[in-house]
């Protein structure tokens, strides 16, 4: 028990301590979606419509920045000593993902504080539910980042994936236009895009438009995808290889 919880806990704590020591990261992650949201929102005179999308983007940026460190850590860094320690790989994966997810969540919460600008006046219950939903989305996106980062040997590869996969995935998630008005292929992509459910979940809980599918179904899909990514991450990290792990 101890040998599973301790490694996970220490890695979780490490993420937080590292983050606390480079606070400028918060600014970078929260500021750009915020500016983006305000420009889009004021420009179209509809802050509410882009709010959930900008929040998810904040969480996504944070998750990407945290998981990109796996690539650096593998070449020269802490990951090496993790790989040759007897701690179970699944415990390391869980610690890393929970740590990075906690950071993304905290930044999502900062963004949640701007909800009144979108015309949302949530009650305490809504805030708690939204906070829980943001954690779920953080966890899932961090899991996605982990799966992408684990096999990569350069950060530039990760940037390419980010531009070719993650950002487009975000664009067709209901963040910019609702599923109701989407046509043909785009609509189909939106249906299978897990991020669609993150957006509809937040919209639903905060009483914003474009909240289909409903919160329960959206939470279910997001959690299911998160769990799947966690399992895949665990399997990837436990694999033995004849190629160098570092």
């Amino acid at each position, binding site marked *: 028990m101890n040998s599973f919880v301790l*490694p996970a806990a220490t890695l979780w704590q490490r993420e937080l301590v590292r983050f606390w020591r480079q606070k400028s990261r918060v600014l970078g992650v929260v500021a750009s979606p915020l500016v983006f949201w305000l420009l889009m929102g004021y420009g179209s005179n509809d802050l509410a419509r882009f709010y959930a999308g900008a929040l998810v983007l904040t969480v996504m940026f944070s998750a990407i920045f945290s998981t990109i460190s796996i690539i650096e850590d593998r070449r020269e860094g802490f990951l090496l000593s993790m790989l040759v320690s007897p701690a179970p790989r699944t415990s390391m994966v869980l610690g890393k993902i929970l740590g990075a997810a906690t950071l993304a969540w905290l930044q999502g919460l900062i963004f949640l504080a701007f909800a009144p600008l979108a015309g949302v006046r949530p009650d305490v219950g809504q805030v708690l539910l939204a906070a829980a939903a943001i954690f779920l989305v953080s966890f899932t996106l961090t899991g996605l980042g982990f799966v992408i980062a684990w096999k990569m040997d350069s950060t530039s590869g990760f940037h390419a994936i980010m531009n070719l996969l993650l950002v487009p995935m975000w664009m067709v998630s209901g963040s910019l236009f609702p599923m109701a008005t989407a046509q043909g292929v785009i609509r189909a992509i939106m249906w299978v895009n897990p991020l669609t459910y993150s957006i509809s979940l937040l919209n639903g809980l905060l009483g914003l438009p474009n909240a289909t599918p409903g919160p329960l179904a959206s939470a279910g899909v997001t959690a299911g995808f998160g769990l799947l990514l966690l399992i895949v991450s665990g399997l990837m990290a436990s694999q033995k290889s004849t190629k*160098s792990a570092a």
Partner: protein
Amino acid sequence: MIEVQNLTHRYGARVALSNVSFDVKKGEIFGLLGPNGGGKSTLFRILSTMMVPTEGKALVAGCDVVREPAAVRRQIGVVFQTQSLDKALTVEENLRAQGHLHGLSGAVLRERMEAAMKRLGLLDRRKDLVDTLSGGLRRRVEIAKALLHRPQVLLMDEASSGLDPAARRDVSRHVENLRESEGVTILLTTHILEEADRCDRLVLLHQGNIVAQGSPDELRSSIGGDVVVLSSEDPATLAAKICERFHLAASARENEVRVEIENGHRFIAEVVEAFPGAVSSVSLHKPTLEDVFVHQTGASIE
């Protein structure tokens, strides 16, 4: 303590290790010496369970690195060539995290950390961020970290590369001290002769093959007498002439001719006399591990 049997490793078509076998006894300081690309790092990665070999077998403290990696990991401490420290954390935080990875906590972990920091002279730097430490100090933190769980075997990859000579001696002193007081078995990879000289036994690796093994003295005495190096503008011709005239093996490399011979000082007088003008400078030395390597492979270590 370490048994390596017919280990072969390929990266795709490239053979990095070819049928390598050796044993390391308990309490030995054992060196893998060779140039970069010789197979040392591949061997290190296999023994430290970072990678499984394509063929063959390796046992560390009686456990198979492929079938029981978790058991091996409990018995080994690993000091990496690249820093495996988190630079954003302090010395103490790095050690604590490492302890946690090994399931240590509470009073036991605190004691181990104190002992490791004391042994490596890090107590006054415990609250410092690793980022602010010198290369030598960082390497000491790496060693302290590798020792926390009291491993039976310490694996060190180029542990003194990138350090100045004083820091290098300092690391060697700590390593020897560790062997004396705790009986830890140490396997290190190196391309530095001075460091290799301090090992109890060595294998010389070249292009994935063991080209020689034994104690530094045994290896050196495999070359009789002295090594004479003659600088020349035309080493090939000079080497050929020496072979013809003195009936001994002379090898030409770049701009010099090497000759291994008893009573080298006498030979120098004769050779300079015999080929006036063909030799621009002369040196004589007792064989070094570099000479052994050159003798076996025709290539140089560094």
